[in-house]
């Protein structure tokens, strides 16, 4: 894809841009959905496209398209230059500088192409089967899904950046229905990796079944303030929100609860957070970021203190800092903006039983809902729906549903008392690896 990207940069300069950058990608993907022992759908698709940023002085514009013919690329580049003319001047706007060396990462699993459709269909059916066989209270499987994709990305800029990489990813998940005395319960099981060999269908099915059956007979807890343990899937969602607040873009525009807190105490000592764009297991890893700057590992919260924000080229210039290689990109259809790559929470020393013991009396939260509507990203205040289990005398007790947990992101971080010993990669809230977290106190609202 380097050739169309080169062409796009040339055409943008010819259309009047003073600088230009092109991001070209192509990907091939498959998805299988199973239900009731049958394959419900099988999708095989290819996509390719290009996104062009054009600068005219300090004005910047963006355009993307799917037509990669010579005329098509010229049209996209011309539209990018046109878009730049509409934008207001911004003294910090400009392309990334070339430099630094990009890591040589193996991000692609060739086994994807060795697994034909019937083999991944069998894997998907095995996920469903495992869920149904796991517990007699499992009534049905809403759906079992497997998907994989292999993408090739190239970035070229007029400042001399030129790079290309290939990356694959795949995941499987299941949504399980369990029959309770007073209605149905659902449970999600999932696994992810770079290729189908990394996916364990039995583990996915069992997890979904366990989560669904564990909720049978759930009731509302009493409203109170108490210790709360977040399981890794829930902790990951919150860590994702915190990553958003640590973006220099949000901070510079005064829209982050972490603004003006650099170097300050923002978390309990037990919470250590890194952004790691090079972790071989992280699904967001890549040799360079969305504008061609080498990825790296950055300490965000250590010793309870906020060490740095996440920067891309624009926010680094504006904040008189260096880019941390955190220009994120949702594909050729979106222009780069600061975002976390893989957020990694350091594991602690306590096993799950010990975490429960530390909590004593409280709530173990296994699922949250309404994160997109229940969190104020500017102030960090949140109130979200939750379900899970009661913790009594340091042990798991009855299932709980239909309650909310409320706090604000900084208070929650400050209240982290312990991190569990077992971390897990979770695709919610971006790409996050985290253990369970014990929060000293949160407001639980039920009956």
């Amino acid at each position, binding site marked *: 894809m380097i050739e169309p990207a080169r062409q796009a940069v040339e055409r943008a300069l010819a259309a009047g841009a003073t600088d230009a950058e092109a991001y070209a990608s192509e990907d091939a993907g498959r998805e299988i959905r199973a239900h009731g022992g*049958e394959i*419900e*759908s*099988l*999708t*095989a*698709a290819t*996509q390719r*496209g290009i996104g062009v940023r054009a600068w005219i002085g300090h004005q*910047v*514009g*963006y*355009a*993307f*398209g*799917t*037509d990669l013919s010579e005329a098509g690329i010229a049209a*996209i580049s011309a*539209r*990018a230059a046109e*878009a730049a003319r*509409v*934008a207001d001047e911004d003294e910090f706007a400009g392309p990334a500088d070339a430099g630094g060396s990009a890591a040589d990462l193996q991000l692609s699993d060739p086994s994807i192409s060795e697994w034909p*459709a*019937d083999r991944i269909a069998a894997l998907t059916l095995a996920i469903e089967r495992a869920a149904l066989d796991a517990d007699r209270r499992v*009534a*049905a499987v*809403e759906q079992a899904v497997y998907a994989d994709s292999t993408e090739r990305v190239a970035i070229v800029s007029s400042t001399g950046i030129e790079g290309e990489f290939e990356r694959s990813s795949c995941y499987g998940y299941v949504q399980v229905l369990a029959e309770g005395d007073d209605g*149905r*319960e*659902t449970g999600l099981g999932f696994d992810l990796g770079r290729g189908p060999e990394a996916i364990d269908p039995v583990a996915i099915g069992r997890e979904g079944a366990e989560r669904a059956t564990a909720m049978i007979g759930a009731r*509302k807890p009493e409203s*109170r*303030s108490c210790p709360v343990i977040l399981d890794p899937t829930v902790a990951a969602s919150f860590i994702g929100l915190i990553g958003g607040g640590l973006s220099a873009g949000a901070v510079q*525009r*005064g*829209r982050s609860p972490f603004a003006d807190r650099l170097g300050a105490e923002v978390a309990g000592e037990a919470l250590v957070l890194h952004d790691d764009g090079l972790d071989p297991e992280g699904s967001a890893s890549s040799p360079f970021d969305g504008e061609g700057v080498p990825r790296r590992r950055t300490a965000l919260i250590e010793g309870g203190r906020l060490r740095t924000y996440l920067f891309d080229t624009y926010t680094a210039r504006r904040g008189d800092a260096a880019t941390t290689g955190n220009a994120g990109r949702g594909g050729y259809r979106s*222009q780069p903006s600061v975002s976390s790559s893989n957020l990694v929470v350091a594991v602690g020393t306590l096993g799950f039983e010990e975490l429960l013991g530390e909590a004593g009396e409280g709530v173990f939260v296994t699922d949250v*809902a*309404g994160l*997109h*509507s*229940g969190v*104020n990203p*500017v*102030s960090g*205040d*949140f*109130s*979200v*729906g939750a*379900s899970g289990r009661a913790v009594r005398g340091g042990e798991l007790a009855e299932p709980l*549903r*239909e*309650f*909310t947990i*409320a706090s604000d992101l900084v208070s929650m971080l400050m209240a982290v008392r312990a991190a569990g010993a077992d971390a897990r990669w979770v695709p919610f809230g971006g790409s996050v690896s985290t253990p369970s977290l014990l929060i000293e106190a949160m407001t639980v*609202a*039920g*009956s």
Partner: protein
Amino acid sequence: MSGVIEPGVAERVLARALANGGEFAEVFAERNAGLTMAIDESRVEAVQSGAAEGAGVRVLSGGTTYFSHVDGLEPADIERAADEAAAALRSGRAEPRPLQAVASTPHQIEQRPAAVPAERKAALLRELDERGRGAGAEIAQFMSSYAEVRREVTVANSEGLISSDDRTRTRIGAQAVARRGDSVETGAETLGGHRGFELFDNDPGEIAAEAARKALILLDAGPAPAGSMPVVVGGGFGGVLFHEMTGHGLEADHIQKGASVYVGKLGEQVAQPLLTAYDDGRMPNEWGSDAIDDEGAPTQKTMVIEEGRLAAFLYDGLSARRDSVASTGNGRRESFRHLPVPRMTNTYIAPGEIEPEAMIAAVGRGFYAKSFAGGQVDPATGDFVFGVSEGYLIESGKVTRPCRGATLIGNCLQALMAIDAVGNDFEMKTGVCGKAGQRVPVGTGQGHVRIGAMTVGGTEV
């Protein structure tokens, strides 16, 4: 209207899709173009122009859907997708029926956004910015966005249907941040329609003022109450409550998988007789409207709840085929890269008879959820959660102080049955609904409604 692909090309594609058998084949072709921009820190930025064209081909055989999509509309591209979709099938050739064009009437667009100079769109954002920032000294920040998209689509299938639609949607949004000391609050408002630039004929700056008003009010907010109490829900975007807690459970795919609390409840009383609700994909120029759905079926007005009784489910072609009924015109997809699934269009609770003030006056202590930030439901269990963006305490029949950070949580069967008043006011609002990884524009609407008891999740225990 002329389509995105020629009937001759569609016929060839359908024949190839059925080359290895199958009961049904379909090609969905699309050409789209859009422009978005934003204003932040009083600077017009993020100007972005996008265009895409491509097609998706699906074949149904037994219970399985085979699907493939490609970028590009060259006949060779689309035929490649057809071959890919057919690749996993192993039977003998099936013959598609000859295509018969079905006329459709796209919604009327008075002023095509693409024909309006980009400078005028930037000027519109500057106007919003001025209005929002002028709303009060405590407005610390203000952002607005503009988006236009035109989607031309043609769908053809092996049953002989070929139909086209030409859809233009335009939308603006405003978000204000108000600050007083350590207190930071946000307010947001949107305006959108299946319309052109004429959407902005009537004081578009109003949404900026409204976003700022919401943020400023919250500066005086105290903590939200926690516990079970009567809740009055505001009109307009309050309709998202019905969309989430009931609408999704009526989508036929959830029903057929047993993953809805409404399974087996058709004809039963699921709400008080004062409640009647519709899904209507035909409302002229409404945000969730189209002339045809994404399978070529005409959109329609479906009464889903009639005086409290569950009256209908929402079908796409595949789920309708399974139940041997007709599609209700609810087969929608985000783009040619997605399979159609049953989706709502514009969903609303029909106006009732009571004045909103009278509804509130009858509440001793309760909560007034005037507007939501959004919500989420698990259709299988019926558990839902909503984030309240503007909420107030109700004390002795009067709306008193504003509350920050409230969430409504409950189960839809109980909550729907607990609606004991429907107001005589009515308003439609725009939303973007996510399901199965696809986002589609939906309208939500209602007047004020009151729920007898619901859990409010705040911080004040």
